[in-house]
């Protein structure tokens, strides 16, 4: 994971964009993580006959090359499906700037190197306005310093320490946590017999 995300930003002002809209269920019947780019925002991007919808921002010039989204409140609400994040990343999105994200979506993004800077409503509105200009706007999300750079401006964002570290180190959480196996075993050794779930097969 790079320490910065730089690129063209597209404005997606809708509030409460849920994971059903980000990744409709017909793309979920899969056992791999791949092949989800076409599914991302499919109902917003394509007509029934799979031709692109001219009214969707990512189908228009210059935003078909967007790497960053500026979004409405409560982005990623609803289902836990990580497919939504996989699809966004496969579509080329590397950062999503918003005021609030649903918890599971936020954690899923971190696991996949998708940066989600949280900004104030004022900053979001400012960035959304600039991103909507017909020439487009390029932003740099500087994860290390927790600022979004736009021209001369440096706008602060929130990101908790652990998420920031995960982005900067690009580590595998599962392998990293196994380094604490002794602590897990110690915890387990303190559990009573009836605190150890054993599911009947």
């Amino acid at each position, binding site marked *: 994971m790079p320490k910065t995300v730089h690129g063209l930003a597209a404005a997606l002002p809708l*509030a409460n964009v849920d994971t059903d809209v980000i990744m409709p269920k017909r793309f979920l019947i899969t056992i791999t993580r791949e092949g989800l780019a076409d599914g991302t925002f499919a109902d917003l991007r394509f007509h029934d006959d799979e031709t692109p919808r001219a009214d969707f921002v990512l189908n228009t010039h210059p935003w078909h090359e967007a790497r960053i989204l500026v979004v409405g*409140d409560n982005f990623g609400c*609803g289902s836990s499906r990580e497919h939504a994040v996989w699809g966004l990343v496969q579509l080329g999105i590397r950062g999503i700037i918003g005021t609030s994200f649903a918890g599971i979506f936020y954690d899923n993004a971190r696991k996949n190197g998708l940066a989600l800077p949280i900004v104030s409503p004022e900053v979001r509105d400012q960035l959304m306005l600039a991103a909507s200009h017909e020439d487009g706007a390029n932003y740099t999300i500087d994860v290390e310093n927790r600022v979004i750079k736009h021209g001369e401006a440096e706008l602060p964002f929130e990101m908790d320490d652990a998420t920031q570290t995960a982005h900067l180190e690009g580590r595998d959480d*599962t392998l990293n946590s196994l380094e*604490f196996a002794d602590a897990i075993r110690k*915890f387990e050794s303190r559990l009573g017999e009836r605190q150890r779930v054993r*599911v009947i097969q």
Partner: protein
Amino acid sequence: MSRTLYDKLVDAHKVCDLPDGDMLIYVDFHIMNEYTSPQAFSGLDQKGLSVWRPEAHLSVVDHVNATRQRDPHDAASKLLIDNLEANCKKHNIAFYGLGDRRQGIEHVVVPEQGLVAPGMLIACGDSHTTTYGAFGALGFGIGTSEVEHVLATQTLRYKRLKTMLVNIDGDLAPGATAKDIIMKVVQVVGAGGANGYAVEFSGSAIRSQEMSGRMTICNMAVELGGRAALIGADEKALEKIKARAHSGTLDFGGLEWNSDPGAEYDTVFEINAADIAPIVSWGTSPDQSVPVDGSVPAETEGMTPKAREALNRALGYMGLKAGQAMTDIEIDSAFIGSCTNSRIEDLRAAASILKGKKVAGSVNAIVVPGSTYTRLQAESEGIDRVFKEAGFDWRPESGCSMCLAMNDDIAMDGERIASSTNRNFEGRQGRGARTHLMSPEMVAAAAIHGRIADVREFLSEGAE
């Protein structure tokens, strides 16, 4: 020092602090389904990892399976189901598949099997895992990468949430149910209002709810953004999980799983139960709802341009006009099911409205019991006959079905559904499908009238 129930649960499961500021928390029990787990298992394989404690996991088939018949309706869903079974076999994990009497919607199956108890920490790759808060257990949804993490380590990396208390005192108005309580809470707090919070419910209106209703309330706490929902343990919670398959094997404590008197919360909401009427959603977010005797909202003067745009987009998608009475809205379909409202108590309540009535001729009415056991229980009580005689399609298999349309129960473009489910998102029940969320009793009433109906009409009939 006084602690909230949430903090007690987190403290009791903390394994250690991590250098990056997170902590590791121990997962007592983990549930998987066939659609959010495949890539977790393949992740284990790629990293050469094994399952830390196989006996602490359960897999249930529920999201993609057909409910008209047992056999998968297509090759793709069969692949997901077979893949889960093979993964469970390989790693020696319990698998409740099609044809198993214990199969059903995961969040209906778990309490039925006595696999939840006050004081437990339960994770699952499904956002509605908040359901277990009804028992004073900490349950929450996780993504597939976290499913892999739990499989490999029996823990999760975790950041403590802020706490929100929603206190609801008083008696509910006639016709109002647990579903209406949570729909009201979503309305008051907003669809993202509890992002970053664990939400505890308290007050006499919560205490007076049976466990089924409490599960409905905690289930939909995720629709306000709550990453966890909680209700303090009481005798009702302990009673509900007695004499179940696993209950004798588990003991995490009992009534101590409550917030201490004087515990402080970051945010508090007070709601008067008497103000809660039967509620119906009109829009495409669960907080876009009104009392059933209300009307579709119209633009108001003080509205921001953003709010106006959101309103008009939702009205356009839903094919509704501002000011239209909710009870004038005709429906095409009625669906009773989902982890929110498909338990035996929900089926009994809907059947009490349907008894001796007929579904309107134009309505396609479906009921999918929440689990195989629930279906068998309902059939032993004759509830299936009430549904069938009224004209409902009583499904012989259990699963999520039309709640999220991952099987062959997919609504058509423009189809309008009275639904006992949890999400009215665009495209949720099918591309272009229009969902109105409501209680199962209200779905039954709507099915009879062929339009959204006020369940209180049926209550007064019964009283005469």
